[in-house]
Protein backbone atom coordinates (compact mmCIF):
# COMPACT_ATOMS: atom_id res chain seq x y z
CA UNK A 1 0.00 0.00 0.00
CA UNK A 2 2.79 2.29 0.85
CA UNK A 3 4.91 2.42 -2.26
CA UNK A 4 5.52 5.94 -3.40
CA UNK A 5 3.50 6.61 -6.57
CA UNK A 6 5.64 5.88 -9.59
CA UNK A 7 3.30 7.90 -11.80
CA UNK A 8 5.12 11.08 -10.76
CA UNK A 9 7.02 12.29 -13.84
CA UNK A 10 10.73 11.40 -13.86
CA UNK A 11 10.56 9.82 -10.42
CA UNK A 12 11.63 6.51 -11.93
CA UNK A 13 13.74 7.63 -14.87
CA UNK A 14 15.81 10.42 -13.30
CA UNK A 15 17.49 9.40 -10.06
CA UNK A 16 18.04 13.08 -9.25
CA UNK A 17 14.30 13.57 -8.90
CA UNK A 18 13.89 10.82 -6.33
CA UNK A 19 17.01 12.03 -4.51
CA UNK A 20 15.66 15.58 -4.45
CA UNK A 21 12.44 14.50 -2.76
CA UNK A 22 13.92 11.76 -0.59
CA UNK A 23 17.06 13.57 0.60
CA UNK A 24 16.83 17.32 -0.05
CA UNK A 25 13.24 17.37 1.23
CA UNK A 26 14.10 14.61 3.70
CA UNK A 27 14.22 15.05 7.45
CA UNK A 28 17.87 16.06 7.75
CA UNK A 29 18.10 18.54 4.87
CA UNK A 30 14.64 20.06 4.51
CA UNK A 31 15.69 23.05 6.64
CA UNK A 32 18.32 23.85 3.99
CA UNK A 33 15.96 23.81 1.03
CA UNK A 34 16.75 27.47 0.35
CA UNK A 35 20.17 26.34 -0.91
CA UNK A 36 18.47 24.80 -3.95
CA UNK A 37 16.43 27.75 -5.16
CA UNK A 38 18.85 28.89 -7.85
CA UNK A 39 19.44 25.31 -8.93
CA UNK A 40 15.67 24.68 -9.18
CA UNK A 41 15.29 27.76 -11.38
CA UNK A 42 18.16 26.67 -13.60
CA UNK A 43 18.17 24.92 -16.95
CA UNK A 44 19.69 21.59 -15.95
CA UNK A 45 17.51 18.67 -17.11
CA UNK A 46 17.13 17.38 -13.55
CA UNK A 47 16.01 20.79 -12.33
CA UNK A 48 13.35 20.85 -15.05
CA UNK A 49 12.33 17.31 -14.10
CA UNK A 50 11.91 18.32 -10.45
CA UNK A 51 9.70 21.21 -11.51
CA UNK A 52 7.56 18.92 -13.68
CA UNK A 53 7.30 16.42 -10.80
CA UNK A 54 6.28 19.19 -8.37
CA UNK A 55 3.66 20.49 -10.77
CA UNK A 56 2.25 16.98 -11.17
CA UNK A 57 2.19 16.49 -7.39
CA UNK A 58 0.31 19.76 -6.86
CA UNK A 59 -2.13 19.04 -9.69
CA UNK A 60 -2.89 15.36 -9.00
CA UNK A 61 -2.02 14.96 -5.30
CA UNK A 62 -1.04 11.35 -6.00
CA UNK A 63 0.78 10.69 -2.71
CA UNK A 64 -0.72 10.61 0.76
CA UNK A 65 1.10 12.34 3.58
CA UNK A 66 1.86 8.86 4.97
CA UNK A 67 3.51 7.77 1.72
CA UNK A 68 5.42 11.02 1.79
CA UNK A 69 6.56 10.34 5.36
CA UNK A 70 7.82 6.89 4.40
CA UNK A 71 9.85 8.42 1.58
CA UNK A 72 11.22 11.47 3.37
CA UNK A 73 10.81 10.74 7.12
CA UNK A 74 8.98 14.07 7.38
CA UNK A 75 5.51 13.76 8.93
CA UNK A 76 3.01 16.33 7.71
CA UNK A 77 0.21 14.32 9.35
CA UNK A 78 -2.39 15.27 6.76
CA UNK A 79 -2.51 15.65 2.99
CA UNK A 80 -3.61 19.29 3.03
CA UNK A 81 -0.63 20.26 5.12
CA UNK A 82 1.75 18.36 2.84
CA UNK A 83 0.40 19.95 -0.30
CA UNK A 84 0.24 23.34 1.39
CA UNK A 85 3.95 23.03 2.05
CA UNK A 86 4.69 21.90 -1.50
CA UNK A 87 2.67 24.81 -2.93
CA UNK A 88 4.66 27.29 -0.85
CA UNK A 89 7.87 25.59 -1.92
CA UNK A 90 6.80 25.87 -5.54
CA UNK A 91 6.01 29.56 -5.09
CA UNK A 92 9.37 30.10 -3.41
CA UNK A 93 11.28 28.30 -6.15
CA UNK A 94 9.45 29.63 -9.19
CA UNK A 95 7.24 32.47 -8.01
CA UNK A 96 7.67 35.54 -5.87
CA UNK A 97 7.49 34.03 -2.40
CA UNK A 98 10.42 35.54 -0.53
CA UNK A 99 11.04 32.94 2.18
CA UNK A 100 11.19 29.17 2.10
CA UNK A 101 8.28 27.41 3.81
CA UNK A 102 8.78 26.10 7.33
CA UNK A 103 8.58 22.30 7.60
CA UNK A 104 6.91 20.60 10.56
CA UNK A 105 8.94 20.14 13.74
CA UNK A 106 9.69 16.40 14.03
CA UNK A 107 9.20 16.63 17.79
CA UNK A 108 5.79 18.34 17.70
CA UNK A 109 2.95 16.41 19.32
CA UNK A 110 1.28 14.23 16.71
CA UNK A 111 -2.49 14.16 16.11
CA UNK A 112 -4.59 11.94 18.34
CA UNK A 113 -4.66 8.96 15.97
CA UNK A 114 -0.88 8.68 16.11
CA UNK A 115 -0.91 7.74 19.80
CA UNK A 116 -0.86 3.96 20.10
Amino acid sequence: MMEFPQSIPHFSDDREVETFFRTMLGLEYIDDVHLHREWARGKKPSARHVREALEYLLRERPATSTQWARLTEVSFWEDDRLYGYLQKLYDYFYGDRADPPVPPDPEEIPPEKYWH
Partner: protein
Amino acid sequence: MVHDMGKAMAKGHRSIGHGLEVTRKNLNEAEENIRRGLHTDHRAAEDGIHLKPGQNVLKKEDLEDEYRDAVSTRIDGLRQEGHGPQRHLDPTDQMLKDRLGVPTPPRMVDNQLEYHRMEHGYVQTERKIDPAHGPHGKQLPEPDRYMDAEDPTRRHKCGAFSTAFKPGEDEAFMHAERYARQQLDLSEDPLRPVRFPPGKAWGPGDHSERFRGFYIDPERPVTHGNINYKPVDFQGADLIAVYRRDERTGDVRLVTMYPEPVKERNK
Protein backbone atom coordinates in the same frame (compact mmCIF):
# COMPACT_ATOMS: atom_id res chain seq x y z
CA MET B 1 86.70 -13.19 -2.67
CA VAL B 2 88.71 -11.77 -5.55
CA HIS B 3 91.76 -12.22 -3.47
CA ASP B 4 90.88 -15.86 -2.87
CA MET B 5 90.20 -16.47 -6.51
CA GLY B 6 93.44 -14.85 -7.44
CA LYS B 7 95.13 -17.22 -5.05
CA ALA B 8 93.26 -20.13 -6.46
CA MET B 9 94.19 -19.20 -9.99
CA ALA B 10 97.75 -18.45 -8.99
CA LYS B 11 97.93 -21.93 -7.55
CA GLY B 12 96.53 -23.32 -10.78
CA HIS B 13 93.40 -24.66 -9.10
CA ARG B 14 91.85 -27.13 -11.48
CA SER B 15 88.28 -25.99 -11.10
CA ILE B 16 89.09 -22.45 -12.17
CA GLY B 17 92.16 -22.55 -14.26
CA HIS B 18 91.39 -25.73 -16.13
CA GLY B 19 91.79 -25.16 -19.87
CA LEU B 20 92.86 -21.55 -19.37
CA GLU B 21 96.25 -20.11 -19.67
CA VAL B 22 96.86 -18.54 -16.30
CA THR B 23 98.52 -15.28 -17.13
CA ARG B 24 98.70 -11.92 -15.38
CA LYS B 25 96.40 -10.55 -18.13
CA ASN B 26 93.74 -13.19 -17.54
CA LEU B 27 94.00 -12.71 -13.84
CA ASN B 28 93.49 -8.95 -14.15
CA GLU B 29 90.50 -9.39 -16.47
CA ALA B 30 88.89 -11.92 -14.12
CA GLU B 31 89.32 -9.58 -11.22
CA GLU B 32 87.89 -6.64 -13.17
CA ASN B 33 84.84 -8.67 -14.27
CA ILE B 34 84.12 -9.72 -10.72
CA ARG B 35 84.53 -6.16 -9.47
CA ARG B 36 82.07 -4.89 -12.08
CA GLY B 37 79.62 -7.61 -11.16
CA LEU B 38 79.70 -6.52 -7.56
CA HIS B 39 78.73 -2.98 -8.48
CA THR B 40 75.89 -3.83 -10.83
CA ASP B 41 72.57 -5.25 -9.64
CA HIS B 42 71.42 -6.92 -12.86
CA ARG B 43 68.04 -7.90 -11.42
CA ALA B 44 67.32 -4.37 -10.27
CA ALA B 45 68.15 -3.01 -13.71
CA GLU B 46 65.76 -5.46 -15.35
CA ASP B 47 62.93 -4.74 -12.90
CA GLY B 48 63.41 -1.02 -12.95
CA ILE B 49 64.06 -0.89 -9.21
CA HIS B 50 66.74 1.56 -8.22
CA LEU B 51 67.75 1.36 -4.62
CA LYS B 52 69.92 3.96 -3.02
CA PRO B 53 72.51 3.05 -0.44
CA GLY B 54 70.76 2.09 2.79
CA GLN B 55 67.38 1.45 1.10
CA ASN B 56 65.59 -1.89 1.30
CA VAL B 57 62.88 -3.42 -0.83
CA LEU B 58 59.57 -3.17 1.15
CA LYS B 59 58.25 -6.43 2.48
CA LYS B 60 54.58 -7.35 2.15
CA GLU B 61 53.91 -6.29 5.75
CA ASP B 62 55.58 -2.94 5.12
CA LEU B 63 53.41 -2.35 2.07
CA GLU B 64 50.33 -3.23 4.10
CA ASP B 65 51.40 -0.78 6.80
CA GLU B 66 51.90 1.93 4.19
CA TYR B 67 48.45 1.24 2.73
CA ARG B 68 46.83 1.33 6.18
CA ASP B 69 48.52 4.65 6.83
CA ALA B 70 47.24 5.99 3.50
CA VAL B 71 43.67 4.89 4.32
CA SER B 72 43.92 6.43 7.78
CA THR B 73 45.24 9.70 6.35
CA ARG B 74 42.37 9.83 3.86
CA ILE B 75 39.72 9.17 6.51
CA ASP B 76 41.31 11.87 8.69
CA GLY B 77 41.06 14.22 5.72
CA LEU B 78 37.35 13.40 5.35
CA ARG B 79 36.88 14.14 9.07
CA GLN B 80 38.13 17.65 8.35
CA GLU B 81 35.73 18.04 5.40
CA GLY B 82 32.49 17.27 7.23
CA HIS B 83 30.96 14.83 9.67
CA GLY B 84 30.87 11.63 7.57
CA PRO B 85 33.28 9.48 9.61
CA GLN B 86 32.36 11.13 12.93
CA ARG B 87 28.68 10.22 12.58
CA HIS B 88 28.83 7.13 10.38
CA LEU B 89 32.12 5.31 11.02
CA ASP B 90 33.67 6.29 14.36
CA PRO B 91 30.75 5.97 16.82
CA THR B 92 30.32 3.03 19.15
CA ASP B 93 27.07 1.10 18.96
CA GLN B 94 25.93 2.91 22.10
CA MET B 95 26.56 6.27 20.46
CA LEU B 96 24.46 5.18 17.48
CA LYS B 97 21.66 4.21 19.89
CA ASP B 98 21.98 7.53 21.74
CA ARG B 99 21.59 9.28 18.42
CA LEU B 100 18.07 7.86 18.14
CA GLY B 101 17.10 9.66 21.34
CA VAL B 102 14.43 8.40 23.71
CA PRO B 103 10.73 7.93 23.00
CA THR B 104 8.70 11.02 23.83
CA PRO B 105 6.83 10.43 27.11
CA PRO B 106 3.98 7.93 26.64
CA ARG B 107 0.53 8.23 28.13
CA MET B 108 -1.41 5.58 30.02
CA VAL B 109 -4.75 4.54 28.55
CA ASP B 110 -6.64 1.59 30.08
CA ASN B 111 -3.49 0.41 31.79
CA GLN B 112 -1.65 0.40 28.46
CA LEU B 113 1.15 2.75 27.54
CA GLU B 114 0.59 4.60 24.30
CA TYR B 115 3.48 6.17 22.41
CA HIS B 116 3.66 8.95 19.88
CA ARG B 117 4.23 7.57 16.40
CA MET B 118 5.65 9.40 13.47
CA GLU B 119 3.53 9.16 10.36
CA HIS B 120 5.74 6.43 8.92
CA GLY B 121 4.96 4.22 11.92
CA TYR B 122 8.21 4.48 13.88
CA VAL B 123 8.16 5.87 17.37
CA GLN B 124 8.72 9.58 17.91
CA THR B 125 11.82 10.41 19.96
CA GLU B 126 13.51 13.38 21.59
CA ARG B 127 16.88 14.16 23.22
CA LYS B 128 18.98 12.85 20.34
CA ILE B 129 22.74 13.02 20.85
CA ASP B 130 24.84 13.74 17.79
CA PRO B 131 27.75 11.23 17.65
CA ALA B 132 29.80 13.98 16.02
CA HIS B 133 30.14 15.48 19.52
CA GLY B 134 32.56 12.60 20.13
CA PRO B 135 32.62 9.96 22.84
CA HIS B 136 31.93 12.51 25.60
CA GLY B 137 28.80 13.96 23.99
CA LYS B 138 26.65 12.42 26.71
CA GLN B 139 28.53 14.42 29.33
CA LEU B 140 27.83 17.79 27.68
CA PRO B 141 25.50 20.05 29.68
CA GLU B 142 21.91 20.32 28.54
CA PRO B 143 20.72 21.54 26.14
CA ASP B 144 24.08 21.54 24.28
CA ARG B 145 24.05 17.75 24.46
CA TYR B 146 21.03 17.58 22.15
CA MET B 147 22.18 20.16 19.65
CA ASP B 148 23.86 19.51 16.34
CA ALA B 149 27.65 19.27 16.68
CA GLU B 150 28.22 21.37 13.54
CA ASP B 151 25.41 23.86 14.09
CA PRO B 152 24.73 24.38 17.80
CA THR B 153 21.72 26.57 16.96
CA ARG B 154 19.83 23.52 15.72
CA ARG B 155 18.46 20.57 17.65
CA HIS B 156 20.06 17.40 16.34
CA LYS B 157 17.87 15.49 13.91
CA CYS B 158 17.85 11.78 13.20
CA GLY B 159 15.29 9.73 11.34
CA ALA B 160 14.02 6.29 12.32
CA PHE B 161 17.44 4.70 11.71
CA SER B 162 20.86 5.48 13.12
CA THR B 163 23.31 3.91 10.69
CA ALA B 164 27.05 3.56 10.18
CA PHE B 165 29.82 1.53 8.66
CA LYS B 166 31.11 -1.24 10.90
CA PRO B 167 34.27 -0.56 12.90
CA GLY B 168 37.35 -1.15 10.78
CA GLU B 169 35.54 -0.52 7.49
CA ASP B 170 37.69 2.55 6.90
CA GLU B 171 38.91 1.21 3.60
CA ALA B 172 35.36 0.51 2.42
CA PHE B 173 34.39 4.04 3.47
CA MET B 174 37.33 5.47 1.55
CA HIS B 175 36.53 3.56 -1.65
CA ALA B 176 32.81 4.35 -1.47
CA GLU B 177 33.59 8.04 -1.04
CA ARG B 178 36.04 7.95 -3.92
CA TYR B 179 33.37 6.40 -6.14
CA ALA B 180 30.80 8.98 -5.05
CA ARG B 181 33.20 11.84 -5.74
CA GLN B 182 33.77 10.53 -9.26
CA GLN B 183 30.02 10.66 -9.92
CA LEU B 184 29.71 14.35 -9.07
CA ASP B 185 28.69 16.70 -11.82
CA LEU B 186 30.97 19.61 -10.99
CA SER B 187 28.95 21.96 -13.18
CA GLU B 188 26.10 21.71 -10.64
CA ASP B 189 25.71 24.37 -7.98
CA PRO B 190 25.11 23.36 -5.29
CA LEU B 191 26.55 19.90 -5.82
CA ARG B 192 23.85 17.22 -5.95
CA PRO B 193 23.93 14.35 -3.45
CA VAL B 194 25.09 11.02 -4.85
CA ARG B 195 22.90 7.99 -4.15
CA PHE B 196 24.25 4.59 -5.17
CA PRO B 197 24.12 0.91 -4.31
CA PRO B 198 27.36 -0.06 -2.51
CA GLY B 199 28.14 -2.64 -5.21
CA LYS B 200 28.87 0.22 -7.59
CA ALA B 201 31.87 1.11 -5.46
CA TRP B 202 32.89 -2.29 -4.14
CA GLY B 203 31.90 -4.69 -6.90
CA PRO B 204 29.06 -7.19 -7.10
CA GLY B 205 27.65 -8.83 -3.99
CA ASP B 206 25.59 -8.13 -0.92
CA HIS B 207 27.63 -5.72 1.14
CA SER B 208 25.14 -5.37 3.97
CA GLU B 209 27.58 -6.97 6.42
CA ARG B 210 29.78 -3.88 6.20
CA PHE B 211 27.13 -1.73 7.92
CA ARG B 212 25.52 -1.53 11.32
CA GLY B 213 22.64 0.44 12.71
CA PHE B 214 19.68 0.50 15.05
CA TYR B 215 16.06 1.56 15.28
CA ILE B 216 13.57 1.43 18.10
CA ASP B 217 11.18 -1.51 17.91
CA PRO B 218 7.89 0.02 16.74
CA GLU B 219 5.90 -2.81 18.34
CA ARG B 220 7.45 -2.63 21.79
CA PRO B 221 9.46 0.59 22.12
CA VAL B 222 10.21 0.13 25.84
CA THR B 223 10.14 -2.80 28.26
CA HIS B 224 10.63 -2.25 32.01
CA GLY B 225 12.12 1.15 31.35
CA ASN B 226 14.62 -0.11 28.77
CA ILE B 227 14.44 0.95 25.13
CA ASN B 228 14.17 -2.01 22.76
CA TYR B 229 16.59 -1.51 19.89
CA LYS B 230 16.51 -3.62 16.77
CA PRO B 231 19.49 -4.09 14.46
CA VAL B 232 19.01 -2.70 10.98
CA ASP B 233 18.82 -5.09 8.04
CA PHE B 234 20.86 -3.41 5.30
CA GLN B 235 19.90 -5.61 2.38
CA GLY B 236 19.12 -3.39 -0.57
CA ALA B 237 20.40 -0.28 1.24
CA ASP B 238 21.81 2.61 -0.78
CA LEU B 239 24.70 4.84 0.18
CA ILE B 240 24.10 8.57 0.13
CA ALA B 241 27.01 10.98 -0.14
CA VAL B 242 26.38 14.69 0.33
CA TYR B 243 28.94 17.24 -0.87
CA ARG B 244 29.41 20.97 -0.72
CA ARG B 245 31.89 23.41 -2.14
CA ASP B 246 34.17 25.25 0.24
CA GLU B 247 33.03 28.87 -0.06
CA ARG B 248 36.56 30.19 0.22
CA THR B 249 38.63 27.73 -1.80
CA GLY B 250 36.02 26.10 -4.03
CA ASP B 251 37.27 22.68 -2.93
CA VAL B 252 34.75 19.85 -3.00
CA ARG B 253 34.05 18.64 0.54
CA LEU B 254 32.18 15.60 1.75
CA VAL B 255 29.48 16.75 4.17
CA THR B 256 28.44 13.22 5.05
CA MET B 257 28.01 9.70 3.74
CA TYR B 258 25.72 7.07 5.22
CA PRO B 259 23.84 3.89 4.37
CA GLU B 260 20.07 4.32 4.07
CA PRO B 261 18.16 1.10 4.77
CA VAL B 262 14.97 -0.03 3.07
CA LYS B 263 12.08 0.58 5.47
CA GLU B 264 10.12 -2.45 4.25
CA ARG B 265 12.93 -4.69 5.54
CA ASN B 266 12.92 -3.02 8.95
CA LYS B 267 9.46 -3.02 10.48
